[in-house]
């Protein structure tokens, strides 16, 4: 996993609640056996019309919106455990998703792939969405070290939570496998006692 550095970027708004992982990446695109290339089909059925033409009203297709941050409605990433959703967001170029609530499995998957889920209050989410809609050049700063997200234009900011273990992993690009392997002796001892 690549280390996460602080992100200062414009953002893409997606003010829809309960965005499930079937929307993020539909099941028919889960047949690959590698992690690469899922970005092409991120939000596939929202980005494209049924005839394959681009849905110009969808925010990702709005040329005014761009950036490494996705700002989405409440309960983002619910449904299927497919990690392909996190791979698709990462592959498309998102480093951060901001929402007022994340589904558990998605949150874990995102963290395991260097995509930072930033949970903010419903009010702050609304502030961000309004700011971006009024001015697509709105810049947001996500400071992982200080667990702070800031709307640069007004300096309005909010603290976000991340557990310290995961924070260390994100900042350094560590993953859980290394840590677990360093505990194999304890795991073997546990197995012996258990049996």
């Amino acid at each position, binding site marked *: 996993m690549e280390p996460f550095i602080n992100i200062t970027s414009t953002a893409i708004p997606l*003010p*829809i*609640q*309960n965005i*499930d992982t*079937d*929307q993020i990446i*539909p*099941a*028919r695109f*889960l*047949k*690959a*056996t*590698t*992690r690469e290339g899922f970005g092409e089909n991120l939000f596939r*059925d929202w980005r494209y019309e*049924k005839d394959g033409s681009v849905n110009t009203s969808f925010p990702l297709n709005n040329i005014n919106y761009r950036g490494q941050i996705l700002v989405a*409605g*409440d*309960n983002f990433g*619910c*449904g*299927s*455990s*497919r*990690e*392909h959703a*996190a791979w698709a967001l990462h592959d498309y170029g998102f480093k951060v998703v901001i929402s007022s*609530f*994340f*589904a*558990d*499995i998605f949150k*874990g*998957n995102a963290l*395991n*792939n260097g995509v930072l889920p930033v949970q903010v209050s419903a009010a702050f989410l609304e502030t961000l969405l309004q700011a971006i809609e009024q001015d697509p050049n709105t810049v947001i700063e996500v400071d992982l070290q200080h667990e702070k997200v800031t709307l640069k234009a007004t300096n309005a900011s909010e603290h976000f939570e991340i*557990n*310290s*273990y995961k924070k260390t992993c994100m900042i350094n690009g560590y*993953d*859980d*496998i290394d*840590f*677990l*392997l360093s*505990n*194999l002796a*304890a*795991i073997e001892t*546990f*197995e012996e006692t*258990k049996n």
Partner: protein
Amino acid sequence: MKKTLFDKVWDAHVVKKIEDGPQILYIDKHLIHEVTSPQAFNELEQRSIPVFRPKQIVATADHNTPTIDQHLPVKDEMSRKQLAQLAVNCEKNDIPLYGLGHEYNGIVHVMAPELGFTQPGMTIVCGDSHTSTHGAFGSIAFGIGTSQVAQVFASQCLLLQKPKSLRVNVNGTLRPGVLPKDVILYIISKLGTNSGTGYFCEYAGNVFEEMSMEGRMTVCNMSIEMGARGGMIAPDATTFDYVKGRPFAPQGAAFDKKVAYWKTLATDTDAVFDQEYHFDAEDIAPMITYGTNPGMGIKISEPIPQDTSKTFEKSLDYMNFKKGQSLINQAVNYVFIGSCTNSRIEDFRVAAQYIKGKQKASNVTAWLVPGSQQVAQQIKEEGLNEIFESSGFQLRQPGCSACLAMNDDKIPEGEYCVSTSNRNFEGRQGQGSRTILASPLVAAATAVHGKIIDITKHLN
């Protein structure tokens, strides 16, 4: 300190607690399938890490598999390759695979319990969110991402924060025509799709105590649809009777010893939960969904509620329904009875009982898809296949089928499908498809009438 069922199973599997951090949790059983495992195998190979405990892994092929002509090569090239990759990975790593054609093949959450892999008090994971199904046995079972699949391959453990505890109590007598599927759809409609996020849920009360293991699996299966990573029901005589004698369950004295332990797992009286809800069984009716998440459910005779949020309106637009509309008499051209939620023998018995002596409506395409080879076999042994065939229904071969539009079984654009599966998300059953979740009884009745009927008025 008083402990919950969850606490007891969790605490028995903690290898180590990291200060101010997660805990290392030991995993007894790791279930894998073709879709969420290949990248995990790749990762291990790239890092030259061996699979640590291959004998604790069980593999099946289910998501991509066709449900007709399974003896022929799989037509879709990508699916065929993914299935072949699973076979290669299992062979290389000495993992038992119950693939296409094997007598034990089936949907991972159907075959593992029926073969006795799933047992009370275990920790069970799978790269599939409906792993919550196995909690019906009083095990801690939950879905994981592919990075975590790799972690379990490497160490038979996961790094986890202990979730909060939630208990949903349902007491009283269920009304006629109300099935376990209605109970869980009702609960989710009351609590919403994210009320369980961050929690592990225990279902308690006489309704669950009196439920069969298959019913309990249906309930626990959909725990994730209210956001809970898993759902559990205390193991009891119903559980022990179900597990006893299954091919991979402990036998003889070893079984008795296990039962003695399993009996200690139930939540202590006076144990405290972080969150608790109570419902009356009498208030539950046959349910259907009208929107694009499983929380958007109503009693079958109720109108669609009024709500002005953008997300709600987007959802109704997608379904082409109106606020205040009743779904009774809504024409439906597709019916699907199957998926890890409702594809066990009791589901087909319920459907057959309703269908017997009636004919499928001519406008309806109905797919009946058993969850496993064992279920398919039992359908034949009980002669249910004859009922289905003489009523104009097609019984297909086991697999995930039309639950997720990953294999050939897809609902066409714009069509409604009354489905016994677990998710009514946009496009879940095929691009532009419109899913209405229901019990196998409501699904069978819809297939016979060609439209949604108020099943409570059609019960003998």
